[in-house]
């Protein structure tokens, strides 16, 4: 299993009482809640934490993209990746943006990623996402075009990286006479592509297509849902006639590690609850604008009547559903070994800082995890679950 330290860079100084006046930490929360001086401290602190993960032997570090919110301060994740490109020496850098349908010109991402890949000598992992629904409100991008624009922008970027330029690209949304990306990416034919998603059948079918075989990342889901979506990926690959391996699936999950289970639970509690109940708070209209999901998927959501923002969640709820990993190194080793064997993921993306978790605890948890959890899995082959196990 490979370990990627994932940072969301929350605005941790958010007034927790904001929700007495506003129904979300996204889109409509006034930016007067943000203090630039605190922002300065937080950005630099968070970059330190990402750099620390590199020195502690994580295989990679991840930055993220969201707009107009207190949940994550990386609207332009390439700025963070650029800052990290020179200060880190060994780890991969995964940009888990970019939200392609928001772009007027996707070639900006082809260029940006190629630059990052070249500066780092091929340490870039290229993430492509649709963004979450709130992005479509914040940026005015039409959610009804989200899927089609994503696919077309992706095709344009991959062709820009792999086809000799200049060439003409004649799409529905993007039309260019001269696609001629300078620089070309360092990794040939192009950097690995990862597709983070909260679990959409359309996205899984697309990522698992033999033309792509992209690594699919499940984000913020209970472990049961993770098992289901990863099984769906492998079944899709089977149907296409190829066998998906652990390298094709990954799990992004907030994680906290401390000396004992009891200490871990106590130290993490206020910060993980702030993360889920304050920073992730949004009404369904913001999360799922029309067209963001297909009508069939939307029907499923209506039937389930569940949303990310449904009700206040406690640390015990979150740990029980394994939407948050928390415990001593022994506990985390056992859980991860069990889940890996059952589900078959080859990448774990622990979010080691979440919500209001302060720097000292982030570093303590990261250090323990790096010293007492990661080494346990070094040299151990990832397991593939039996086919019927997670059906």
């Amino acid at each position, binding site marked *: 299993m490979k370990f990627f330290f994932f940072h969301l860079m929350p605005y941790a100084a958010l007034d927790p009482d904001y929700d007495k006046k506003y129904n979300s930490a996204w889109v*409509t929360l006034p930016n007067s809640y943000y203090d630039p001086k605190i922002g300065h401290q937080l950005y630099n602190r968070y970059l330190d934490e990402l750099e620390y993960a590199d020195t502690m032997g994580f295989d990679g570090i991840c930055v993220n993209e969201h707009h107009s919110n207190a949940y994550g301060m990386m609207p332009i994740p390439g700025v963070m990746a650029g800052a990290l490109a020179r200060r880190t020496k060994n780890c991969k850098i995964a940009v888990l943006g970019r939200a392609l349908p928001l772009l007027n010109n996707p070639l900006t991402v082809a260029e940006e990623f190629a630059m990052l890949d070249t500066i780092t000598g091929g340490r870039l992992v290229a993430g492509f996402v649709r963004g979450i629904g709130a992005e*479509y*409100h914040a940026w*005015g*991008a*039409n*959610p*009804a*075009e989200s899927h089609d624009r994503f696919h077309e922008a992706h095709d344009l970027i991959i062709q820009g990286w792999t086809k000799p330029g200049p060439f003409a690209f004649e799409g529905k949304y993007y039309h260019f006479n001269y696609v001629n990306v300078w620089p070309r990416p360092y990794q040939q034919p192009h950097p690995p592509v990862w597709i983070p998603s909260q679990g959409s059948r359309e996205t899984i079918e697309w990522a698992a297509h033999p033309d792509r075989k992209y690594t699919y990342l499940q984000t913020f889901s209970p472990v049961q849902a993770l098992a289901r979506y990863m099984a769906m990926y492998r079944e899709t690959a089977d149907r296409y006639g190829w066998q998906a391996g652990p390298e094709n699936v990954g799990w992004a999950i907030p994680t906290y590690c401390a000396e004992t289970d009891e200490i871990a639970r106590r130290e993490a509690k206020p910060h993980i609850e702030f993360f889920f109940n304050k920073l992730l708070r949004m*009404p*369904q*209209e*913001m999360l799922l*604008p*029309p*067209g963001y999901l297909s*009508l069939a998927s*939307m*029907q499923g959501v*209506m039937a389930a009547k569940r949303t990310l923002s449904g009700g206040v969640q406690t640390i015990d709820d979150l740990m029980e559903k394994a939407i948050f990993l928390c415990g001593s190194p022994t506990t985390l080793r056992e859980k991860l070994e069990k889940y890996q064997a059952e589900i078959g993921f080859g990448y774990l993306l622990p979010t080691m800082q979440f919500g209001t978790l302060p720097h000292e605890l982030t570093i303590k948890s990261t250090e323990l995890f790096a010293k007492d959890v990661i080494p346990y899995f070094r040299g151990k082959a990832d397991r593939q679950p039996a086919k019927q196990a997670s059906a």
Partner: protein
Amino acid sequence: MPYQEHFETIAGCKVRIMRGGSGEKLLFLHGARGASAWLPFMEALSQRFDLIVPEHPGFGGSETPDWLDNIGDLAYFYLDLIDALKLQRVNLAGVSLGGWIASEIAVRNDSALKTLTLICAAGIHVKGQPKGDIFMWSREEFIRNIFHEPRFAEAMLAMAPTDDELFAEMKNRLATANLGWQPRLYNPDLHKWLHRITVPTLIVWGDDDKVIPPAYGTAFQQLIPGSRLKIMKNAGHTLQIEKADELAALMTSFIETH
């Protein structure tokens, strides 16, 4: 008077049409919430007119054609429909989104039209006059915000929607987003060409329209030569429900005097 429901295939798209009454032809274009039911307002109009109420491509019981990308596609579709149904000297009316479509039809070609009625119409933007964000409102907020009188919203909220109705609502929201998410429910070029409308035009607005404020009625009136504006008192965005009789009477007298 009974109405009939049938399907027509126009420009390769099968659309559901309700039609009832006799007299002058009146083509009514619905708003973002679709036209699933024959409303008392339609019944009232059908006493004097041959009332034709299609569901737009992409909405309710109509198909979603591959060619449907923008409001201009619907304008040309309805010009095809006017030809296909042989609607000469037809009175065209539209509410909200339907008013936008009606305007787009009329600036392209109003030779088959006798009159035009725009009711709380979308389609233009007036700087400094914010519209309601229908996509950010919850279902309940939406229903409350389309009326002036709370009792209409209460009555609508009291009826639990069936799964089919909820599905139609989702389909209609998707179609509306497709046409008008950005820029939000207007065409930046439309205002430049509204002077091309030469048929008698009536503009009707509610004084308490929380979706598209009445300043938009004034703007439409100034942009369409010879048009007249009627602002209804104590009325919201959904006049065809909240002011059904008054609106039907107003339209009848307007159409009959032209």
